[in-house]
């Protein structure tokens, strides 16, 4: 696999949310606004990059029997650090993401990549994998949250995460026709289902076309 393939792998082909269906819990819960989704995406990516690098670096000295507890300790340390830093520098984001920041510890994307990739590959490849997967996760939650916020409130508002009162950009298309249930938890499942359906439909369409081309 070339370096570029490793990077692209997480973004599209093995997108953690849309294809591997990992880390659904946070993806359903925090995708109420685009601002939240970007904040969560950055936090997960940061933890993923650090954990992949550290685990890849120590993969040869960690005894096989206790590798999972060691990974968990490494990941928990990183998540707690991210939590403290977010509490200090982005208090509003910290409040709105709430319990889902500490829950990054048990986000299966991170342990999954540690176990299936970083523990078997070199430092640089692991870094690329983490960036790809992290961006893939961010892309997925941003897509879901953009859909939910657009349908649920009729527009999208993006706040500066460092200062919640500062609005970076905001537009409103059809406020009167917004379906507010899309911002509720049930709307999260509906949105995810619809988006997964569209993606799967597109994949099938492409596969069928390839098949037809072969027959000819």
């Amino acid at each position: 696999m070339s370096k570029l393939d490793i990077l692209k792998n997480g973004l599209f082909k093995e997108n953690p949310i849309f294809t591997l269906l990992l880390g659904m819990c946070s993806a359903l819960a925090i995708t109420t606004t685009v601002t939240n989704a970007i904040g969560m995406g950055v936090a997960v990516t940061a933890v993923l990059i650090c954990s992949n690098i550290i685990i890849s670096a120590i993969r040869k000295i960690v005894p096989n029997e206790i590798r999972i507890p060691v990974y968990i300790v490494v990941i928990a340390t990183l998540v707690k650090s991210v939590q403290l830093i977010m509490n200090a520098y982005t208090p509003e984001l910290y409040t709105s993401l709430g319990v889902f920041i500490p829950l990054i510890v048990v986000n299966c994307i991170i342990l999954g990549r540690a176990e299936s990739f970083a523990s078997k590959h070199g430092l640089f490849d692991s870094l690329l994998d983490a960036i790809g997967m992290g961006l893939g996760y961010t892309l997925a939650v941003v897509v879901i949250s953009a859909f939910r916020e657009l349908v649920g409130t009729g527009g999208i508002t993006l706040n500066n995460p460092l200062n919640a009162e500062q609005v970076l950009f905001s537009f409103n298309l059809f406020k009167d026709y917004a379906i507010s249930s899309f911002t509720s938890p049930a709307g999260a499942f509906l949105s995810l289902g619809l988006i997964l359906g569209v993606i799967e439909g597109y994949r099938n369409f492409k596969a069928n076309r390839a098949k037809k081309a072969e027959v000819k």
Partner: protein
Amino acid sequence: MKTVKLAIFLAIVSALSGLCLSAVNDVTEPIIKEAAIAKERANLQQIYTGGETFEVIEADFGDYTTLQGVYKVSNGDYVYKGSKNGYGGPCVYLVAIGSDGTFKGFAALDLSNETNGFGSRVGTDEFKNNVVGTKIDESIDTLSGATVTSTAVVDSIKEAVAHYTENYK
């Protein structure tokens, strides 16, 4: 022997993780504390004008449902923030309790739901003078004409005194 080795390895990893966390905590703790106090600072400075510093205290108020927060002042006083429904809605105030057992200060923060000229008098010096200087185990006089509002605030101050006596005296 193998097990002991594994245990030692895990212990070393955990110790390193603890070290990292304490380093991060050292950097972020003052900022987090600063942010927690920042919103209240302007209010606290209504009582303390001499450049005192404040610190948020994590407290469990339990049954004292009208209390919202407690702050420690650099001179040893404690300031309570409380809110209790008066005539028209919540009355939010700060009350300072000194280490000598008297009230050091009082500031009404939100009396916007109280009737102008009646309940709103709790926000004037008239009521403040009733509070400041009183010993905390003595009762504070309510204001006639603003009975509902001042009684609500006095009741809530009693809870602050009870919490103070239990925890910080």
